[in-house]
Protein backbone atom coordinates (compact mmCIF):
# COMPACT_ATOMS: atom_id res chain seq x y z
CA UNK A 1 0.00 0.00 0.00
CA UNK A 2 1.38 3.45 -0.90
CA UNK A 3 1.51 6.24 1.63
CA UNK A 4 -1.12 8.01 -0.45
CA UNK A 5 -3.62 5.17 -0.30
CA UNK A 6 -2.78 4.65 3.37
CA UNK A 7 -3.78 8.25 4.04
CA UNK A 8 -6.97 7.86 2.04
CA UNK A 9 -7.93 4.75 3.94
CA UNK A 10 -7.36 6.32 7.34
CA UNK A 11 -8.67 9.84 6.65
CA UNK A 12 -12.07 10.26 8.17
CA UNK A 13 -14.18 11.99 10.76
CA UNK A 14 -13.91 9.86 13.89
CA UNK A 15 -17.35 11.04 15.04
CA UNK A 16 -20.82 9.91 14.02
CA UNK A 17 -22.96 12.14 11.81
CA UNK A 18 -25.09 13.37 14.73
CA UNK A 19 -22.18 14.26 16.99
CA UNK A 20 -20.36 15.85 14.04
CA UNK A 21 -23.31 18.20 13.45
CA UNK A 22 -23.51 18.91 17.19
CA UNK A 23 -19.77 19.70 17.28
CA UNK A 24 -20.13 22.03 14.29
CA UNK A 25 -23.03 23.86 15.94
CA UNK A 26 -21.06 24.18 19.16
CA UNK A 27 -18.10 25.62 17.25
CA UNK A 28 -20.37 28.16 15.52
CA UNK A 29 -21.98 29.21 18.82
CA UNK A 30 -18.60 29.64 20.54
CA UNK A 31 -17.31 31.56 17.52
CA UNK A 32 -20.28 33.93 17.54
CA UNK A 33 -19.77 34.74 21.24
CA UNK A 34 -16.03 35.36 20.76
CA UNK A 35 -16.63 37.41 17.62
CA UNK A 36 -19.20 39.63 19.32
CA UNK A 37 -16.87 40.18 22.28
CA UNK A 38 -13.98 40.89 19.91
CA UNK A 39 -15.88 43.44 17.80
CA UNK A 40 -17.19 45.31 20.87
CA UNK A 41 -13.66 45.34 22.31
CA UNK A 42 -12.33 46.56 18.95
CA UNK A 43 -14.70 49.56 19.08
CA UNK A 44 -13.37 50.37 22.57
CA UNK A 45 -9.81 49.91 21.27
CA UNK A 46 -10.50 52.51 18.55
CA UNK A 47 -11.59 55.02 21.21
CA UNK A 48 -8.51 54.31 23.34
CA UNK A 49 -6.12 54.53 20.38
CA UNK A 50 -7.60 57.75 18.98
CA UNK A 51 -8.43 59.67 22.16
CA UNK A 52 -6.27 58.30 24.97
CA UNK A 53 -2.97 57.32 23.34
CA UNK A 54 -0.34 60.04 22.75
CA UNK A 55 0.14 61.44 19.24
CA UNK A 56 3.60 60.60 17.89
CA UNK A 57 5.52 63.86 17.41
CA UNK A 58 6.95 63.34 13.90
CA UNK A 59 4.27 61.19 12.22
CA UNK A 60 1.13 62.75 13.69
CA UNK A 61 -2.22 60.97 13.78
CA UNK A 62 -1.27 58.69 10.86
CA UNK A 63 1.04 56.80 13.26
CA UNK A 64 -2.11 55.51 15.03
CA UNK A 65 -2.70 53.24 12.03
CA UNK A 66 -0.02 51.20 13.83
CA UNK A 67 -2.69 50.09 16.38
CA UNK A 68 -4.75 48.29 13.71
CA UNK A 69 -2.05 47.46 11.14
CA UNK A 70 0.26 45.53 13.48
CA UNK A 71 -2.53 43.56 15.28
CA UNK A 72 -3.97 42.62 11.86
CA UNK A 73 -0.53 41.43 10.72
CA UNK A 74 -0.02 39.48 13.95
CA UNK A 75 -3.38 37.68 13.64
CA UNK A 76 -2.83 37.02 9.92
CA UNK A 77 0.54 35.40 10.64
CA UNK A 78 -1.00 33.45 13.54
CA UNK A 79 -3.66 32.22 11.10
CA UNK A 80 -1.02 31.05 8.62
CA UNK A 81 1.00 29.40 11.38
CA UNK A 82 -2.10 27.43 12.33
CA UNK A 83 -2.67 26.55 8.66
CA UNK A 84 0.87 25.11 8.57
CA UNK A 85 0.53 23.16 11.83
CA UNK A 86 -2.92 21.76 10.97
CA UNK A 87 -1.77 20.85 7.44
CA UNK A 88 1.30 19.01 8.72
CA UNK A 89 -0.76 17.20 11.36
CA UNK A 90 -3.33 16.26 8.72
CA UNK A 91 -0.63 14.67 6.54
CA UNK A 92 0.59 12.76 9.60
CA UNK A 93 -2.66 11.76 11.30
CA UNK A 94 -5.17 11.91 8.44
CA UNK A 95 -7.89 13.52 10.57
CA UNK A 96 -10.19 15.51 8.27
CA UNK A 97 -11.04 17.98 11.03
CA UNK A 98 -7.46 19.26 10.82
CA UNK A 99 -7.88 19.89 7.09
CA UNK A 100 -11.13 21.77 7.66
CA UNK A 101 -9.54 23.86 10.42
CA UNK A 102 -6.62 24.69 8.11
CA UNK A 103 -9.10 25.79 5.43
CA UNK A 104 -10.98 27.98 7.93
CA UNK A 105 -7.75 29.55 9.19
CA UNK A 106 -6.50 30.18 5.63
CA UNK A 107 -9.69 32.01 4.66
CA UNK A 108 -9.68 34.19 7.78
CA UNK A 109 -5.93 34.79 7.35
CA UNK A 110 -6.48 35.96 3.78
CA UNK A 111 -9.09 38.51 4.92
CA UNK A 112 -6.71 39.72 7.65
CA UNK A 113 -3.84 39.99 5.14
CA UNK A 114 -6.08 42.08 2.90
CA UNK A 115 -6.48 44.45 5.87
CA UNK A 116 -2.71 44.55 6.38
CA UNK A 117 -2.07 45.25 2.70
CA UNK A 118 -4.59 48.12 2.60
CA UNK A 119 -3.85 49.80 5.95
CA UNK A 120 -0.10 49.69 5.19
CA UNK A 121 -0.32 52.00 2.15
CA UNK A 122 -2.66 54.33 4.08
CA UNK A 123 0.16 54.71 6.61
CA UNK A 124 2.93 54.75 4.01
CA UNK A 125 1.53 57.59 1.89
CA UNK A 126 1.74 60.36 4.52
CA UNK A 127 4.99 59.04 6.07
CA UNK A 128 7.02 57.67 3.15
CA UNK A 129 5.38 59.85 0.50
CA UNK A 130 4.31 56.82 -1.53
CA UNK A 131 1.49 54.29 -1.37
CA UNK A 132 3.70 51.31 -2.18
CA UNK A 133 7.35 50.26 -2.43
CA UNK A 134 8.45 47.04 -4.09
CA UNK A 135 10.68 46.20 -1.13
CA UNK A 136 10.99 42.80 0.50
CA UNK A 137 8.55 43.02 3.46
CA UNK A 138 5.67 44.42 1.40
CA UNK A 139 6.32 42.28 -1.65
CA UNK A 140 6.65 39.02 0.29
CA UNK A 141 3.43 39.78 2.22
CA UNK A 142 1.65 40.41 -1.10
CA UNK A 143 3.12 37.13 -2.40
CA UNK A 144 1.79 35.29 0.69
CA UNK A 145 -1.66 36.83 0.09
CA UNK A 146 -1.65 35.56 -3.51
CA UNK A 147 -0.42 32.15 -2.36
CA UNK A 148 -3.34 31.86 0.05
CA UNK A 149 -5.82 33.02 -2.59
CA UNK A 150 -4.32 30.18 -4.68
CA UNK A 151 -4.75 27.77 -1.75
CA UNK A 152 -8.45 28.66 -1.47
CA UNK A 153 -8.91 28.45 -5.25
CA UNK A 154 -7.18 25.03 -5.30
CA UNK A 155 -9.64 23.75 -2.69
CA UNK A 156 -12.59 24.76 -4.86
CA UNK A 157 -11.14 23.15 -7.97
CA UNK A 158 -10.60 19.59 -6.66
CA UNK A 159 -13.75 17.52 -6.18
CA UNK A 160 -12.37 14.55 -4.23
CA UNK A 161 -12.14 15.61 -0.53
CA UNK A 162 -9.01 13.55 0.24
CA UNK A 163 -7.11 14.68 -2.85
CA UNK A 164 -8.14 18.24 -2.05
CA UNK A 165 -6.96 17.91 1.55
CA UNK A 166 -3.57 16.43 0.57
CA UNK A 167 -2.71 18.98 -2.13
CA UNK A 168 -3.87 21.94 -0.09
CA UNK A 169 -1.95 20.70 2.98
CA UNK A 170 1.28 20.93 0.97
CA UNK A 171 0.45 24.48 -0.20
CA UNK A 172 -0.59 25.42 3.35
CA UNK A 173 2.75 24.28 4.78
CA UNK A 174 4.67 26.20 2.09
CA UNK A 175 2.62 29.33 2.86
CA UNK A 176 3.30 29.06 6.59
CA UNK A 177 7.03 28.73 5.88
CA UNK A 178 6.96 32.25 4.40
CA UNK A 179 5.86 33.80 7.72
CA UNK A 180 9.24 33.71 9.56
CA UNK A 181 10.93 34.91 6.36
CA UNK A 182 8.57 37.92 6.21
CA UNK A 183 9.22 38.69 9.89
CA UNK A 184 13.01 38.49 9.51
CA UNK A 185 13.16 40.13 6.07
CA UNK A 186 13.68 43.60 7.58
CA UNK A 187 16.93 42.34 9.13
CA UNK A 188 18.08 40.37 6.08
CA UNK A 189 17.58 43.11 3.45
CA UNK A 190 17.81 46.89 3.24
CA UNK A 191 14.23 48.04 3.45
CA UNK A 192 12.07 51.14 3.99
CA UNK A 193 9.76 49.16 6.31
CA UNK A 194 10.32 49.74 10.06
CA UNK A 195 11.88 46.95 12.09
CA UNK A 196 9.78 45.12 14.72
CA UNK A 197 9.19 47.10 17.94
CA UNK A 198 8.18 44.16 20.16
CA UNK A 199 9.46 40.84 18.82
CA UNK A 200 13.17 41.61 18.82
CA UNK A 201 16.14 40.36 20.86
CA UNK A 202 16.57 43.49 23.02
CA UNK A 203 12.87 43.64 23.97
CA UNK A 204 10.16 46.21 23.18
CA UNK A 205 11.30 49.82 22.55
CA UNK A 206 8.06 51.77 22.73
CA UNK A 207 6.67 54.18 25.36
CA UNK A 208 4.49 52.34 27.89
CA UNK A 209 1.21 53.99 26.86
CA UNK A 210 1.74 53.13 23.19
CA UNK A 211 2.92 49.61 23.99
CA UNK A 212 -0.13 48.84 26.15
CA UNK A 213 -2.50 50.10 23.41
CA UNK A 214 -0.68 47.97 20.85
CA UNK A 215 -0.78 44.85 23.05
CA UNK A 216 -4.49 45.45 23.68
CA UNK A 217 -5.02 45.57 19.91
CA UNK A 218 -3.06 42.34 19.45
CA UNK A 219 -5.16 40.57 22.11
CA UNK A 220 -8.43 41.84 20.59
CA UNK A 221 -7.51 40.85 17.04
CA UNK A 222 -6.56 37.40 18.34
CA UNK A 223 -10.06 37.06 19.86
CA UNK A 224 -11.63 38.29 16.59
CA UNK A 225 -9.53 35.74 14.67
CA UNK A 226 -10.63 32.92 17.00
CA UNK A 227 -14.28 33.93 16.65
CA UNK A 228 -14.10 34.05 12.85
CA UNK A 229 -12.15 30.80 12.52
CA UNK A 230 -14.50 28.85 14.81
CA UNK A 231 -17.54 29.99 12.81
CA UNK A 232 -15.80 29.19 9.50
CA UNK A 233 -14.71 25.78 10.82
CA UNK A 234 -18.31 24.99 11.83
CA UNK A 235 -19.47 26.01 8.35
CA UNK A 236 -16.89 23.67 6.79
CA UNK A 237 -18.03 20.71 8.88
CA UNK A 238 -21.73 21.33 8.20
CA UNK A 239 -21.00 21.72 4.49
CA UNK A 240 -19.15 18.37 4.42
CA UNK A 241 -22.00 16.73 6.32
CA UNK A 242 -24.55 18.17 3.90
CA UNK A 243 -22.57 16.88 0.90
CA UNK A 244 -22.12 13.44 2.52
CA UNK A 245 -25.89 13.14 3.13
CA UNK A 246 -26.60 14.33 -0.39
CA UNK A 247 -24.24 11.67 -1.81
CA UNK A 248 -25.71 8.96 0.44
CA UNK A 249 -29.23 9.88 -0.70
CA UNK A 250 -28.07 9.21 -4.27
Amino acid sequence: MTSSSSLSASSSFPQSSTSSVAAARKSIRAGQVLLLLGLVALAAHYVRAIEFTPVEATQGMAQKIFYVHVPSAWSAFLAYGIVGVCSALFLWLGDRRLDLFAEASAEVGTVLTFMVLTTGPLWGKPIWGTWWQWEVRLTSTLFLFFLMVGYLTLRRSIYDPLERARYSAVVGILGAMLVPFIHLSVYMFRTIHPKPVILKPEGPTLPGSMLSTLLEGVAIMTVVYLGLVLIRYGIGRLQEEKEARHAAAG
Partner: protein
Amino acid sequence: MLLQAEPPQNAGFMLAAYMLVAVVLVVYAVTLVLRARKLVREVQP
Protein backbone atom coordinates in the same frame (compact mmCIF):
# COMPACT_ATOMS: atom_id res chain seq x y z
CA MET B 1 14.27 80.05 21.63
CA LEU B 2 13.57 76.53 20.35
CA LEU B 3 10.25 76.05 18.63
CA GLN B 4 8.72 72.59 18.77
CA ALA B 5 7.22 71.59 15.42
CA GLU B 6 3.53 70.69 15.36
CA PRO B 7 2.78 67.07 14.34
CA PRO B 8 1.64 66.83 10.70
CA GLN B 9 -2.10 67.05 10.06
CA ASN B 10 -2.89 63.64 8.58
CA ALA B 11 -5.79 62.30 10.63
CA GLY B 12 -7.72 61.50 7.43
CA PHE B 13 -5.39 58.58 6.65
CA MET B 14 -5.91 57.17 10.15
CA LEU B 15 -9.70 57.47 9.92
CA ALA B 16 -9.67 55.81 6.49
CA ALA B 17 -7.61 52.88 7.84
CA TYR B 18 -9.81 52.45 10.93
CA MET B 19 -13.00 52.55 8.85
CA LEU B 20 -11.57 50.10 6.32
CA VAL B 21 -10.71 47.56 9.05
CA ALA B 22 -14.14 47.96 10.65
CA VAL B 23 -16.02 47.59 7.35
CA VAL B 24 -14.00 44.55 6.20
CA LEU B 25 -14.42 42.77 9.55
CA VAL B 26 -18.13 43.52 9.91
CA VAL B 27 -18.97 42.55 6.30
CA TYR B 28 -16.98 39.29 6.58
CA ALA B 29 -18.44 38.50 10.02
CA VAL B 30 -22.03 39.07 8.85
CA THR B 31 -21.40 36.94 5.74
CA LEU B 32 -20.06 34.08 7.89
CA VAL B 33 -22.90 34.28 10.43
CA LEU B 34 -25.55 34.24 7.68
CA ARG B 35 -23.87 31.26 5.96
CA ALA B 36 -23.65 29.44 9.28
CA ARG B 37 -27.32 30.05 10.16
CA LYS B 38 -28.45 28.82 6.74
CA LEU B 39 -26.43 25.59 7.12
CA VAL B 40 -27.59 25.06 10.71
CA ARG B 41 -31.20 25.17 9.45
CA GLU B 42 -30.43 22.83 6.54
CA VAL B 43 -28.34 20.20 8.37
CA GLN B 44 -30.26 18.84 11.34
CA PRO B 45 -28.56 16.43 13.80
